């Protein structure tokens, strides 16, 4: 990138915990050490090049891995964990191809750093499968022919899953609004709305049984 930041001395040294304590100005240190345990509360700044060990809970399984602070959850899922169901589109929060669930809510994996996802429950499209069988929302998308090229589909399905978890009986208007964070270049919107509606019906019938 043309305007990559210049490496500063601090970056070259890497700011280790010891580095932080010794470089921090007296004023800031004072603020940071109010009481005796405050210094403990100031976390380490990881050096830009350093890998950080994190644990990510994905589809119910904890993955322990080393990540760079700049890696997005999207990159980490696809390039480090091989979970390529989550798609790469705009990488700036403008398309929804990368939608996953974080603590049950649809979120963009491209706008979430992996280090920020630690401690959350992450669900990807792979997590909706029931063994080799499709999950109910996935099946509804197939039944209703709710895609053409299919690129936006994993994101659409995750958005639908999040919507139905929050609102099991959405109106058509609520489906449209709830799904408004996912673009479809093939404009399969009518079928998508129908698929979400039919998945909701299916779940209600399942509950009634």
């Amino acid at each position: 990138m043309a305007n990559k930041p210049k490496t500063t001395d601090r970056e070259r040294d890497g700011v280790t915990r010891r580095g932080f304590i010794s470089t921090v100005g007296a004023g800031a240190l004072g603020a940071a050490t109010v009481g005796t345990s405050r210094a403990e509360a100031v976390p380490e700044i990881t050096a830009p090049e350093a890998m950080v060990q994190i644990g990510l809970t994905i589809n119910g399984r904890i993955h322990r891995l080393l990540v760079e602070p700049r890696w997005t959850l999207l990159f980490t899922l696809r390039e480090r964990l091989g979970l390529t169901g989550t798609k790469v589109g705009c990488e700036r929060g403008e398309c929804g191809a990368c939608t996953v669930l974080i603590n049950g809510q649809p979120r963009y994996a491209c706008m979430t750093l992996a280090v920020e996802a630690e401690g959350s429950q992450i669900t990807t499209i792979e997590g909706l499968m029931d063994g080799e069988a499709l999950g109910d929302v996935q099946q509804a998308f197939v039944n209703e022919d709710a895609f053409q090229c299919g690129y936006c589909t994993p994101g659409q399905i995750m958005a639908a899953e999040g919507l139905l978890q929050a609102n099991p009986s959405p109106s058509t208007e609520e489906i449209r609004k709830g799904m408004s964070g996912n673009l479809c270049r093939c404009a399969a919107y009518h079928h998508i709305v129908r698929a979400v509606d039919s998945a909701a019906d299916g779940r209600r019938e399942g509950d009634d049984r």
Partner: protein
Amino acid sequence: MFPRFSHARPTDLQAALALLEQASGRIHAGGTDLLGCLHDGVLTADTLVSLSNIAELKGISPSTENGLRIGAMTPIGAVAAHAGIRSTYSALAQAASVVANPPLRSQGTLGGNLCQKTRCWYYRGDFPCLRKGGDHCFAFEGENQHHAIFGGEGCYMVHPSDTAPALAALGATCRISGGGSSRSVPVDQFLMPALVDPQRETVLEPTEILTEILLPPAPPGLRSSYRKIRSRQAWDFALAGVALALQFDGNVVRSARVFLSGAAPMPWRAQGAEAVITGNSLNAQTITKAAAAAVEGAEPLQHNGAKVALFEGLVAESLETMG
């Protein structure tokens, strides 16, 4: 892939402030604006100081002054869904509910919404504009369909936030911590005029954190609203928006605060409209006069003249639904 940066995620405010002091860090709230700017190379960062693990910055609770306190890290979606905000401060609930779309509302925070960078395509694009240290605003003579019709002093961006005009109309205050102290700034003075410092969108110093937003107690007879017009029905910034906070005494408006979004580099106070409304009931004549007063003095650029009529119609429509 972003250029490399380091990252810290402290669990309390004092630690975050200490990190900002020593690391010349950038604040990461929800990341929805910040990461886009880093991705596009509009901003650079050596260190990100994340506020996402600081519990004291989240949540909505009664304030000591009998109003509401909203932690800066409260998700925009939580603001939109909050029963007390919906019933008492409807302008804010309505504004929060039309920000972007559901995923961005659950990740983006109210504080981040006030501190976000402009969406001007020259700023976001490869142009060395005034806000990036250049010497002029490209929008002035360029493609300016979405740009300012008021207050374009040096820079003709429009402020992208929907919540800022609603908070300004409701008389909300920002609480700010940093440099060993804390201070309060009314939301309508929180954004920095380009003439004073084009490279800072807000009055925050680099070592300061916006910690909470305080809503004053609602006066009796308060009615408020926020409406915006956009090019598509969802996931779009305001072409024209208006926040109203009117205090009624029976049919008569005792006091009025009217702020426009999509009009200026900051929420634009329509004082002319306020003056017309104050002391009157909202009859057809008052509404027509107030809507005309709201756009009086507008200085559209070459391609955004349509906004003037858009604002006039929007203000009239919003007042009609309020009366």
